[in-house]
């Protein structure tokens, strides 16, 4: 792997790290398998790109993107809690709807940001080469996000989020409306996915309605790789592990893409297959371990 590919993987790892934090929140904390992110990641990209091309400050556009993502997550949460639709199905419904909505927002399937100001311009002034500056910027975003989430999950409200995912009966008996907690939690997760999408769009200079395909599987792969390799004993550790898992995952992909076995080599279109196999392996391995111990 070249240094250039290495920095590229770091950049991808960190920029998707925010999404991975969101996936961690739903899958691990709330125990809510949420596929909405496949739609809310491009939603964030679309909102941010449209805002920037209309002259909005790039940082402000991130906040708008997060707001849109939060609303999308809320819709999934409401469908699940108030209308008793199975969580997976609720999230798929929102995700499918977002495809149309994203095209409506952009007015077309994709939107370029070439020449427009982005958040990356704020670091390019530091004199660092862009392939170092952008991973650093995204790592900064991740550090802030982890710090805020660790703080939040240790507040009174945050504890109810943990408890809702763990034991809904118990936390209801403690007087908490779990519906509201789920709606808020899924909203928060999708706000992070949208932020991730907005930054990706600003980084690659375009938003595309199809950029969210497979997001959830990649996010899940990162979460699982993270906790397998880096552990998950505390909340803080689990979240840092999720970010590092995201980086590891992108590095593994970069390695796979650089691999040549005779005349065979992987192409980017093989990524979904590789990711699926990775996730299956990670999910099955604990069971296999148990079997072999017996």
């Amino acid at each position, binding site marked *: 792997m070249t240094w250039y590919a290495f920095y590229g993987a770091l950049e991808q790892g960190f920029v998707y790290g925010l999404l991975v934090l969101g996936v961690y929140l739903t899958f691990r904390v709330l125990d809510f398998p949420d596929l909405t992110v496949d739609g809310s990641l491009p939603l964030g990209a679309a909102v941010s790109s449209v805002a920037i091309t209309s002259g909005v400050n790039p940082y402000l556009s991130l906040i708008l993107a997060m707001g849109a993502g939060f609303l999308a997550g809320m819709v999934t949460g409401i469908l699940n809690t108030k209308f008793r639709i199975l969580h997976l199905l609720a999230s798929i419904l929102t995700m499918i709807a977002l495809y149309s909505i994203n095209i409506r927002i952009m007015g077309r399937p994709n939107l370029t940001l070439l020449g427009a100001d982005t958040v990356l311009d704020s670091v390019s002034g530091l004199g660092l080469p862009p392939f170092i500056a952008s991973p650093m910027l995204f790592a900064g975003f991740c550090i802030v996000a982890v710090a805020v989430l660790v703080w939040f999950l240790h507040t009174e409200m945050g504890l109810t989020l943990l408890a809702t995912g763990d034991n809904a009966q118990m936390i209801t008996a*403690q007087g*908490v*409306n779990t519906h509201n907690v789920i709606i808020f939690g899924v909203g928060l997760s999708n706000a992070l996915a949208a932020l991730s999408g907005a930054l990706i769009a600003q980084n690659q200079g375009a938003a595309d309605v199809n950029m969210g395909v497979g997001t959830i599987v990649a996010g899940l792969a990162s979460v699982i790789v993270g906790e397998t390799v880096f552990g998950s004993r505390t909340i803080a550790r689990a979240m840092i592990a999720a970010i590092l898992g995201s980086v590891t995952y992108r590095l593994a992909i970069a390695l796979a893409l650089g691999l040549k076995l005779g005349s065979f080599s992987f192409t980017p279109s093989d990524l979904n297959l590789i990711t699926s196999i990775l996730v299956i392996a990670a999910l099955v391995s604990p069971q296999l371990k148990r079997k072999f111990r017996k």
Partner: protein
Amino acid sequence: MLEIDNVTKYFNRGTVNEVLALNGLSLSVREGDFITVIGSNGAGKSTTLTCIAGGFTPDSGSIRIKDENITNWPEFRRAAFIGRVFQDPLKGTCASASIEQNMALALRRGKPRGLSKGVKDKDRPWFREQLATLGLGLENRLKDTAGLLSGGQRQALTMLMATMERPDILLLDEHTAALDPKTANQILELTHTIVETQKLTTLMVTHNMHQALNFGNRLIMLDRGEVILDVGGEEKRNLTVEDLLQRFYALRGEAMGSDKLLLG
């Protein structure tokens, strides 16, 4: 304190599996009552407790706590009045949260939760003090997750959590049934101590007639969703297991007799 008035509840109404779970059940609980609830399987013991806690809305009738009509209140809202311990020791605590986090969650039962620290430094000494009363050594394990505790330890912790913020009514749903006999006795003793010292209004469902007779100042027997026996005070103190069984079988015999008549 608690007034259950003519509450009826069908499960699976209108299907072949229709069950009349509560059949015009009425019960008046006075402040400070410690009521033991017995009855055969399917008599409606747990259903009665779930009904008070808000697990479902009755088809008819009303429930009032402290003169507040809570018949249509959702479960989480009623928690402001009610402390609960479940039969399953895993249900009352959060496995992935630490002991102190669990206690902090219980400390705000029925109150709004904000963005202040979940576990407050000023509460820790008090948590330790409370845990020390259990005599299980949990006071030195505040940071351990509840999932590391045994069933008995978790049930003891749940007992504390249900009562540390004084509930108007304590609901115990066969809370020792899933424990081994020794642990069950420890939890029962703990229950006795807590209920007596705090003078808590309590409903305790049990399968064990000795328990039902030895604990509390009042005993009710349920059958087919109705209260068929309600004894208190002197009468309950003089009651023996034999008396109870006699009444129980007398009633069952009668029920069987009427079934026979029906079936011809």
